């Protein structure tokens, strides 16, 4: 049995010996390098482009919007983002001109000598300014998308409620900072079509975008994923842009073009997590029951719509958390500013709204004089109850049990009062806090139906099995987990299964590697396809013929041996796009995270001393890989909570260096203690639910609650920098 075993990572040996091939490890004969010349201004009209002195420009391939064969649109959701600015720019770093040359160093020097002259227009830099609407920079009102959720009668409750607690909460932008920057290698000729190899999460997203950019039929576009050094969402939609740029240069030059961003460029120009502002107004009874929740959730999408409607959707749905409340109103809005467009980053809106919620929950507990955990217990949603967006929770859920386990593992019950006593008059104050949350797995609502994902499994005459899927390995363990799932279904060993390199000329469209869907949704298709393949050999196998021989026999008699499976929605799952209500997700993973911190009052620095992550995930396919996901996600959450801050200056990231954008080193992280509960989900492979994004939701609010406990300050925004702790503590004293 493969499922449940910590089978070693399939490509582990290649990774530890340096043999894995990432895009920058590829070199083609006659290859040129490509770079992007970007807008220095956040908004305005392009007056002129000057090509400076001292560069042999005739040796360069130069591409502008005028060179685009198809549509100058980055095909995603809304047709508002150009591949290359044409007349106007709407954010600093917006691509305007592309250059290619065989000498990479000369190319970079040439880029420095191109000047883009912009006549500036008024620009908008903050979420609040955008909402205010003094300057309209997108559409009629700066709003990319809005959603409304309404259950019960919130206003009637507020009119008579005993206790009302209000609060505003903010989160900042976060840079994914995959250690491998974005990169693509392209070959493109009108007669042959376009082929790109590169770092990416979603080959078919790139495929769709290139088809539109070049106005070519699908069969003429080929996208191949190379080993990818981290994605976290940062390589979900963005790669379509760099792929298109490399391909445009290759198209014009008639030679292969490799484009790999340098770190400063990648940080400044590509997507980041949407900044957010959440306004909570909550009515609660004196004994701590939630009576009404009014939530106003807003995210800053940057200059173009990109994925903001979907980030908003997930953030809005998660904003009321794992609680039951009969009266709920949620307004979600995604707005435009003149920053480089924000985009997918692990969690995708949920970390933002859950931060606000869980910080708010601790404040409500305080207002009604209940402990944070007693207050949660009164309000956790139970199986059979209806969520804020109208989903009846059918799967078993026991948040109280998860909470109990997390508090026990972290020794919360005894540490909390101990710290209260010991904190008086000491220079280093301790605190412990938790967050309770859930994360929906798979695409929201009808998303999976629209994707209609397909997986194919085939076997050779030697009995070697190959899984064909567009879902990618980006470090999370896709290759290994799919091998285990297929092996289980075929009663083989995981080492007998090969996962084909995701190549759109070879693999079917299984949808993107996002939304915590890879293991749960696509892994299920792997299972079904494998089962379907085995069914073709059923009679032969029943006779006791070994697998390999059965394959050979089949192929000799009937030809190619392969089977596919396509996504079918689980029965009874219904989501209404228009009304934004119903079964938002097939299932949820549920969790409680606990953070123990110390705050040094001399330097105001915060240290996370211990971290406990308890979650119910359906089924753990591979314990080492699953724990790795939680540990890594918690580390990113700690970074977001304490260290990672984008310094914005007029819509440009001023700290676009690894020296100045701070992610945790090995010395900054505590031991992260992970515990899994398993309540199998009927429609996941082996019962598994998705977990990739879950850990991102819990760390920041747990830490914020712990810091508030340690210092008495009311944390409302992240990152909680030492500078902000100083300011908050002064406010408390004053």
């Amino acid at each position: 049995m493969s499922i449940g075993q910590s089978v070693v990572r399939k490509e582990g040996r290649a990774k530890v010996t340096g043999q894995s091939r990432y895009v920058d490890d590829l070199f083609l004969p006659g290859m040129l390098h490509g770079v992007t010349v970007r807008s220095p201004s956040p908004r305005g009209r392009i007056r002129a482009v000057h090509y400076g002195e001292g560069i042999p420009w005739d040796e360069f391939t130069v591409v502008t919007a005028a060179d685009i064969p198809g549509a100058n649109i980055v095909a995603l959701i809304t047709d508002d983002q150009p591949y290359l600015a044409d007349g106007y720019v709407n954010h600093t770093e917006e691509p305007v001109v592309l250059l290619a040359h065989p000498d990479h160093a000369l190319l970079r020097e040439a880029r420095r000598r191109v000047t883009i002259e912009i006549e500036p227009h008024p620009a908008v830099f903050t979420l609040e300014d955008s909402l205010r609407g003094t300057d309209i920079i997108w559409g009629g009102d700066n709003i990319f998308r809005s959603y409304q959720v309404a259950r019960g009668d919130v206003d009637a409750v507020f009119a008579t409620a005993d206790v009302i607690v209000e609060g505003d909460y903010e989160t900042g932008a976060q840079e994914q900072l995959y250690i491998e920057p974005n990169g693509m290698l392209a070959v493109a000729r009108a007669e042959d079509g376009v082929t790109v190899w590169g770092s990416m999460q979603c080959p078919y997203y790139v495929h769709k975008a290139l088809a539109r950019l070049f106005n070519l039929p699908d069969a003429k576009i080929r996208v191949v994923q190379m080993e990818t050094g981290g994605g976290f969402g940062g390589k979900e939609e963005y790669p379509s842009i760099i792929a298109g740029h490399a391909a445009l240069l290759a198209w014009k030059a008639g030679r292969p073009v490799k484009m790999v961003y340098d770190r400063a460029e990648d940080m400044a120009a590509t997507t980041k997590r949407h900044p957010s502002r959440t306004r909570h107004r909550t009515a609660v009874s004196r004994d701590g029951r939630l009576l009404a929740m009014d939530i106003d959730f807003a995210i800053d999408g940057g200059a173009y719509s990109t994925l903001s409607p979907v980030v908003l959707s997930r953030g809005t749905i998660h904003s009321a958390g794992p609680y039951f409340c009969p009266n709920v109103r949620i307004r979600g809005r995604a707005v435009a500013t003149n920053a480089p467009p924000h985009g997918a980053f692990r969690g995708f809106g949920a970390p933002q709204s859950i931060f606000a919620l869980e910080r708010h929950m601790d404040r409500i507990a305080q207002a009604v004089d209940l402990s944070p955990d007693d207050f949660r217990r009164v309000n956790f949603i139970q199986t059979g109850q209806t969520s804020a967006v109208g989903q009846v929770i059918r799967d078993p859920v026991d948040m109280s049990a998860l909470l109990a386990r997390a508090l026990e593992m972290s020794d919360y019950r005894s540490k909390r009062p101990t710290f209260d006593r010991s904190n008086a008059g000491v220079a280093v104050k301790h605190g412990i806090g938790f967050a309770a949350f859930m994360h929906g797995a798979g695409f929201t609502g009808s998303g999976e139906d629209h994707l209609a994902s397909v997986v194919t499994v085939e076997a050779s005459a030697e009995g070697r099995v190959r899984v064909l899927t567009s879902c990618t390995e980006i470090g999370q363990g896709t290759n290994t987990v799919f091998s285990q799932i297929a092996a289980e279904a075929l009663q083989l060993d995981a080492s007998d299964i090969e996962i084909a390199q995701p190549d759109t000329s070879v693999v079917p469209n299984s949808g993107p590697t996002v939304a915590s869907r890879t293991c749960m949704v696509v892994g299920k298709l792997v299972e079904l396809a494998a089962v379907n393949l085995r069914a073709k050999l059923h009679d032969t196998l029943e006779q006791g013929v070994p697998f390999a021989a059965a394959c050979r026999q089949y192929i000799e008699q009937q030809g190619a041996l392969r089977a596919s499976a396509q996504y079918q929605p689980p029965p009874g799952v219904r989501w209404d796009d228009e009304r934004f209500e119903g079964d938002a997700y097939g299932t949820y993973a549920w969790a409680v995270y606990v953070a123990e911190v110390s705050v040094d009052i001399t330097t105001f620095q915060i240290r996370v001393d211990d971290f406990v992550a308890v979650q119910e995930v359906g089924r753990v396919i591979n314990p080492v890989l699953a724990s790795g996901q939680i540990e890594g996600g918690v580390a990113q959450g700690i970074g977001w909570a304490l260290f990672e801050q984008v310094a914005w200056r007029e819509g440009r990231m001023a700290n676009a260096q690894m020296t100045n954008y701070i992610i945790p080193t090995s010395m900054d992280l505590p031991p992260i203690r992970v515990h899994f509960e398993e309540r199998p989900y009927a429609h996941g492979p082996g019962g598994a639910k998705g977990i990739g994004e879950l850990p991102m939701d819990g760390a920041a609010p747990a830490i914020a609650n712990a810091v508030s406990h340690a210092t008495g300050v009311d944390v409302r925004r992240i990152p909680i920098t030492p500078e902000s702790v100083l300011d908050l503590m002064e406010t408390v004293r004053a």
Partner: protein
Amino acid sequence: MPDPTVSIRCRVNGRDVDVTGHPMMRLLDALRVDLHLTGTKEGCGEGECGACSVLLDGELVNSCLVPLVHARGVEIVTIEGVAAEERLHVVQEAFIADGGAQCGICTPGMVLAAVSLLNRNPSPTEDEIREGLAGNLCRCTGYQRIFAAVANACRGPRGGTP
């Protein structure tokens, strides 16, 4: 300015090699482009991430910060030289067994940093492991399984070159 191109000889993974280039050319580029040893990675170009780490005369260095002329006559070990042909170094075995690599981009540098640490300190404490790897950034793992791998590597038999 007169043509500054230099030609230097050094030893890489046990073999003598010659590299010609500008004296200030990065050792990282000499390795990846001139010598086709693409196992050493570029993550930042500013000496922060450690993905470009190699051993130079037995010491861990960031190859993005070493100019070509400073590589003359030295002994370099890259990730390609850590295993002894088919037999992996105990650190590499441990990384595989303990899940120390996820996306793998930081792994070559991380392995070199761990090898360097164990060469200097065969039985490091957990704090010493943390400190020894502090110059190598990982975004995927949260470091936990990397520490476990290094701790386990100390217990096992030694294989490999450096």
